[in-house]
């Protein structure tokens, strides 16, 4: 049975490029980072490749990690998000620039969201069109503002806002659609 180590020991081992601790890190964080990758790239196949790249990048950069500047999980999450964006850019998937979409069109159905479990919600988010999905993840889940998102994706700030609005509309409607299906199933 493999011995498990605390995170500080794993970080120290990874800084020394010790394969044992690198593997421990993969074991400890693979599920979390895999979920992040699915949210960004949409499919498990692509996410698997990206999460591998992310770990390689983490192993290379870990010597620069300073615990005083932030949590380790936030740091590896940021690296993973960057790898996801790089991957999407490599696939030539660009964020659509929508500037003429009127805001204030959103409506939420809190009941529909509340009923979903995490995996279903992840699936719904992963099904968002590529460009919208990036903005949605960066804004709603990672908490970046539109200016930062614009810089990260190379789009205008207003486009980021529009894409987010559109993403939310699509997400809401997908959720409603799911809810209706569920009600129908219950009726039967």
């Amino acid at each position: 049975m493999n011995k498990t180590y605390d995170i500080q020991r794993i970080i120290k081992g990874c800084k020394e490029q010790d394969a044992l601790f690198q593997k421990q890190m993969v074991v400890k964080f693979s599920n979390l980072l895999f979920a992040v990758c699915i949210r960004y790239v949409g499919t498990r196949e692509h996410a698997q490749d990206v999460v591998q790249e992310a770990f390689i990048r983490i192993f290379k950069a870990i010597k620069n990690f300073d615990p005083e500047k932030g949590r380790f999980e936030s740091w590896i999450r940021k690296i993973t998000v960057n790898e996801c964006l790089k991957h999407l850019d490599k696939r030539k998937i660009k964020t659509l620039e929508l500037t003429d979409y009127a805001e204030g069109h959103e409506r939420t159905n809190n009941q529909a969201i509340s009923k979903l479990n995490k995996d279903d919600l992840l699936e719904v988010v992963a099904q968002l069109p590529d460009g919208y999905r990036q903005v949605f993840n960066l804004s709603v889940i990672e908490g970046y503002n539109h200016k930062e998102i614009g810089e990260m994706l190379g789009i205008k700030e207003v486009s980021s806002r529009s894409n987010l609005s559109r993403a939310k509309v699509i997400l809401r409607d997908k959720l409603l659609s799911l809810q209706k299906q569920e009600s129908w199933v219950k009726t039967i």
Partner: protein
Amino acid sequence: MGENYMNQHVKDMLYDHQVAIDPEMLWSGIQQKQKQRAWTLWLGTLFGLLLLLGVGYYSASIFNVQNSIPILPENYGTAAFSDHKDEVYSKDQDDVNAEMKITPEEQIISIENKVFKTNESLKTADKPIKSKIKSHTSPLAEDLTALQSQKELPTLNTKSILNNTRAKTVENKFIDSPIGEESNKLSYTDKLSIDQLLIEEFLPIDGLDMAMLVYNRPYKKLKRNRSNRQNCYAFGKQRHPWSLYVYGGPSFLLKNLSTKVEQDKTYLSQREATENVLESWRAGAQFKYKWENGFYVKAGIEMNRLNEQLTFTNMRDSMYVLTDQVIRIIIDSAGDTTEVLGDVTVTETTTEDWVIYNKYQFVNIPLHVGYIKSKNRWSFAGEVGLHINVSFSFDGQLLTPTGQPIQDPSYFKTNAGSAISLTGGVGYQVLPRARLWLTPSYMKLLRPINIDAYPIDQEYSTMGLLAGIEFKF
């Protein structure tokens, strides 16, 4: 509030959400990628070092001005020697009245009197030569001092002496040597073994017809100096069995996709329609051993990279429902309008233009057998080779049989097997120990690079023009 609730709720649910993935599989994939990158880095570094070494060697040979050591006493002008007999050339002596030095390394082994049959022309002095020998450490120094005590030495017609006193073969060898023409030295003759040069000098001494000073000069002390004379190298046949060959160049990639199964032909057409061969290149370094009969063997390491472009358009439909949309407007007789709201199903079609660059990378151990024929500075060679693959990797994406792009290296073998090659070559010797080569080469992989379960066979061959430089040890 509703929107904020949704944002917060989604964040709460997904921020730390985890999706199970097999960590062992992930770890093995990471290790494989790291290994591939390490190989690439190692080979790149090796190639860079070899290139640097080659360029450094070449540059040092051409531009070695400051570090050059005169191979003859400095006042005697400079000269260039190869380490083979019959190939001694020297720069013209600029000042025949300069002092002559024998360096401490040059051990004087004998001084003896020689009586030559001289004629009047030998004693006819055009101008006097003051020839001194100094800086020596030989036990025979005193004798030399005695010799150099002669203050006025007649000028010799060295060509006459050569004609009269040396064997015809010797005369032929060195008659073109400028030293013999313009100095009071008759010749530099290699009479001994490969590790030293026996030098004979003839000095006219009063009371004697001629004195012959014989000393040897260890070859190790002889250094090339090209600073003053560019064309003083010897390019004759030399015995250098070992050499290092560094090469690289572009290739045309000939790809062959095939299948024997009828139902896989649609997929085959799809693959052929979406993939374009871009280019490929080969680079490597090989050690070569050549026998005197012209046959040689080569072995080393080689990297072969094939690049292709995958281009296709993916249409993806995304369906969603917009609620509370105006779906009908009723205008009554009074002109009033009533909007009827309802759900609208919208189908959004996303068109993705995919351009993906795929890389197939091979690391091979090439084993070559060939034959070389040289004439003057030109060489012609032909060889056959077996390339044993030690590492193969695929980086990129392919279409699946269902038409989706997927990055899955497991479609490919981890070892591409062997390849055979046929290579010709033209070489030109730019330096005594360096030869440039231009070699057209055909290489064919002996088996497909896909796994057997894959619906089609993917085979490659390349036709390239490689350029390289060979350094003889």
